[in-house]
């Protein structure tokens, strides 16, 4: 069972997590929804080991077993679409490039650099790169920002069949409806509604 127990984290006087606990289903896509600034991104960053909580514990997983998609794309202007994936994929899994491009609907863009991609394509490339990383938990912060809804829903179906669970943040009602589970949040400090 993957989850967190009694996580507490403050930035100065501002408590973002206050004894926050959550259990993540073992498979499928779990969507986190809540108002901006309630602490969803901070929760993902804590699970990925990028923020150290003042107290509490993460259970069933270590940061090195997670893969996080950041809220911004963080693409490398000097690498092509294919190189973005091969940079992350382990050597023995390089053959997964076409599969990842198909999942994120980027086929035919292998040799394109980020400057020539649209905003939505850049977002899908960032998602493909995140999925290229072998992980036991995928943490996706607004993976469909700038992606058209019909395509987002198709990609979401693909995410459901991944061998590892996916925890994603979204504000899009259709994405929340299509996810396997939805956790409504509020805050700060972050709490399950």
């Amino acid at each position, binding site marked *: 069972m993957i989850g967190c127990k009694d996580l507490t984290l403050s930035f100065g006087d501002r408590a973002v997590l206050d004894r926050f606990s959550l259990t993540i289903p073992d498979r499928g896509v779990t969507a986190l929804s809540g108002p901006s600034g309630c602490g969803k991104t901070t929760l993902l960053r804590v699970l990925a080991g990028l923020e150290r909580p003042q107290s509490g514990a993460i259970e069933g997983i270590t940061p090195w077993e997670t893969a996080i998609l*950041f809220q911004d794309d963080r693409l490398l202007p*000097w690498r092509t679409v294919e190189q973005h994936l091969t940079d992350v994929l382990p050597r023995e899994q390089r053959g997964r490039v076409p599969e990842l491009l198909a999942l994120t609907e980027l086929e035919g863009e292998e040799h394109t*650099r980020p*400057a020539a991609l649209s905003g939505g394509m850049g977002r899908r490339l960032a998602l493909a790169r995140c999925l290229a*990383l072998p992980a036991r938990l995928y943490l996706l912060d607004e993976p469909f920002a700038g992606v058209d809804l019909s395509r987002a829903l198709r990609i979401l179906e693909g995410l459901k069949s991944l061998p590892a669970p996916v925890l994603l943040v979204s504000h899009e009602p259709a994405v929340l409806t299509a996810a396997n589970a939805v956790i409504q949040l509020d805050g700060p400090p972050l709490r399950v509604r």
Partner: protein
Amino acid sequence: MGWIKYPKKLICPLLPPAFWLGVWQVCAFWVDRRLDGKGNELQLPYPISVWKALVHLVGTEEFWATVLTSLGRIALGLTWGVLIGAALAVLTCSSRWCDRLLSPAVRVVRAAPVASFILLVLLWTGRNTVPAVISAMMVIPVVWDNLSRGIQAVDPKLLELAKCYRFTKIKTAALIYLPALRPYILTALTTATGLAWKSGVAAEVLCLPEPSLGQRIYYTKYYLDIPELFAWTAVTVALSMVLERLLRACLARWGRGWGT
């Protein structure tokens, strides 16, 4: 109207040098008039005299030996300067203690007069080594300064990405630091090439290694052959510009298509 563009492309780069040649010609003529045609070649020779001296030099065997030997010395100094400067930049950016220890030394090298270093290095090593060592010493602070600023300016979000996506240190250097440093490397190399030539030839003038551009420049003073002094200076400037253009072209190829 493509036919207008072509001559424009050809003429525009030629206009500034043509203007300065004209200024030179007028100034030389003015000096000639002031001296009643007696000895203007000792103060400001005409461009045509310099051109004749240059053509005469290019036809001699010693010219190529001199040019290639100086080019070799200065290119060697430039290479070592870039390598040491880059290594120092990495060290001072990666460790606070290295920064505290090394930064003052590099700043002293940058501020100290080049003539002092030339004389000291001449005492410590043979005269043939001085130009390369001096070129390297002048290049090190420039490369260190530019690359240090570049390393500090690398996007921390990309470094966080590298950490999360389990990039090794070598991969982080190759995929994030090096491409992000490209504009800083370009600035460093452009400035460093000019400095390497200036300081290297100055060292040759003072130490007279054989054969060398500096030695030939020194002899022009000895024999008061001012057109030849201008000719050797033009050769030095041309070599510096060619080397700089070559390095710029290499870096431009490296960054093609990035859209940055």
